[in-house]
């Protein structure tokens, strides 16, 4: 195996170059002085200051964050409930319809989800705006949350919950004081996933948004369709920076936690 390293090194280098060079170029040219995105004309941060003075972008960013925060919180609560029902709920009437309604949004093309939700909102006379985007985002991201949470739920020992009930908990008390603390990491990553999906969504938001509720992806899309723009590069760089920072910190934190746990377990084994 080890002698094959040259092949592995080459495939990994080329693969990661393919994944990261486009984003690197994007970042580098956000500091370009020229308006032409593809010609380097010296270092400048003018596109960042222009971005911060562009009210349309700032407004869109606020709408996006608001939608993302509210919808991901709602999706986390509903998704966790779904996961609990699917993993621990046993049999109930309409279970198969329930499970297909959870998995269908995961494979449904966004154009269809967007179209169908828009037709619903029109037929019940609901004005399109921030609220309808929140409804739409909650609906599809709660399914993703339920997948993340139920895999954690399925992998943890049921007898821990039974022990809580045996020691005098009601079902709700057992969930609150035992199950929830244990699945908390999965719930948090479910929330992050829902938040990212909401921040990312262009297609569904385009269908269900109103004139006064433009989200950041809609704004980016309409400006990108007109061609390359260094302001978008600057915006992209900021978004990439935030995501990278978030992912790096969380992975370092979890890596440390795992290391510490391993060390303590080894210690316990030696002492035991």
């Amino acid at each position, binding site marked *: 195996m080890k002698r094959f390293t040259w092949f592995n090194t080459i495939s990994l280098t080329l693969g990661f170059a393919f994944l990261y060079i486009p984003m690197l170029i994007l970042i580098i040219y956000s500091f370009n002085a020229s308006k032409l995105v593809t010609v380097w004309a010296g270092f400048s941060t003018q596109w960042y200051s222009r971005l911060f003075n562009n009210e349309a972008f700032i407004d869109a960013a606020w709408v996006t964050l608001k939608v993302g925060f509210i919808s991901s919180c709602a999706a986390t609560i509903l998704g966790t409930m779904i996961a609990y029902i699917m993993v621990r709920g046993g049999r109930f009437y309409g279970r198969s319809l329930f499970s297909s309604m959870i998995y269908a949004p995961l494979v449904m093309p966004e154009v269809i989800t967007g179209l169908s939700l828009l037709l619903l909102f029109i037929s019940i006379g609901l004005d399109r705006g921030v609220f309808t985007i929140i409804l739409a985002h909650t609906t599809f991201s709660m399914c993703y949350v339920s997948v993340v949470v139920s895999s954690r739920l399925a992998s943890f020992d049921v*007898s*821990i919950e039974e*022990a809580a*009930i*045996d020691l*005098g908990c009601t079902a709700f008390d057992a969930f609150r004081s035992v199950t929830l603390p244990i699945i908390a990491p999965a719930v948090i990553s479910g929330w992050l996933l829902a938040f990212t999906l909401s921040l990312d969504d262009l297609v569904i938001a385009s269908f269900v948004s109103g004139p006064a509720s433009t989200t950041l992806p809609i704004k980016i899309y309409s400006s990108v369709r007109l061609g390359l723009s260094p302001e978008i590069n600057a915006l992209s760089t900021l978004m990439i920076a935030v995501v990278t920072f978030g992912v790096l910190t969380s992975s370092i934190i979890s890596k440390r936690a795992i290391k510490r746990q391993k060390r303590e377990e080894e210690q316990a084994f030696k002492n035991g």
Partner: protein
Amino acid sequence: MFMTIFEPWNETNSKPFIEFRGVSKRFGALTAIDNVSFSIYEREFFALLGPSGCGKTTLMRMLGGLEKPSKGQIFIDGQDINTIPANKRSVNMMFQSYALFPHLTVADNIAFGLKRSDMPKSEIPDRVNEMLKLVQLDNLDARKPHQISGGQRQRVALARSLAKAPKLLLLDEPLGALDKKLRQETQFELVDIQEKLGTTFVIVTHDQEEAMTVASRIAIMDQGKLIQIDTPDLIYEAPSSVRVADFIGDVNLIEGNAQKMANGKMQIEWAESQPALIADSSAQIPNDGKITFAIRPEKIAMTKHKPDDADNAVEGHIQDIAYLGNVSIFKVRLTSGQLMNAQASNTRRLSRRNFTWEDKVWLSWTETAGIVLTK
């Protein structure tokens, strides 16, 4: 000194603490428990023993209120347990996986049930310390479950399930995850704790040695049915059926035709041109006379020459020897073709052993050594 022997099951006036009346449990098409009725008495250390999948865990989970019987009733202290929810019973359980709460410290794990009981908050720390002392973990109260060893986790689980001073403690394979040496030590500790507290213990295990060590009585289960309930010595010495004899320990089974003799003993024809075996048994011989004669390997003596005064003696040659350290098991091929195991203590060093492969030997036993089984 006069000792009172603890045998409530033999006393006509003792009231059972737990009573199963015609209990069945089905999971879909599968019958896990099939019409089981028996009683357990207060202060007993009762073992449910059987191979995996025999229904012993289901039986215990019903006691703990984690499963409901499909048919029949279970009474604890005269009360039908179906009328009390799981979190209101004076029954606690120690789980096979220990089921310690990973996010709580050892002390918080033990206090978990107490916080949900009537105990005043101020008394909880004292009770937790008392429990920690009981299982000898005084200095580990602030650790999390992953920071302690497997043996210590087992003790925390025991302390947690005993903290609320239940009238009945259920133990689901409590020592299954420990290595052999630790397991043997812990078995005696469990017995000590049970005697000290006087709590009724019901243990589920598939390890017969464990059941024999700890239990006052053992119930042997197979395929959802109870096949024998008795004290460990009776289970071993007087199994009621071939299945029990075969399940507990090593046994030689010889099928044959039995006949009562004039002196009340039994004469068993077991192979052509072989002398009949003589057994002192009061078993009822079925009409067709077919019985199974069971004899434990350690009750067989092995000699080079035919003993003169033996009740039963058969001839054969040594086919295989399993040296186990303290004892050796000899697999002897009888002249009739059957294979029989005989056990001998290794009182002498290996080099001075009497028997070796292919040696002609005689196996002999007394007329009371074996049992005649009709089921």
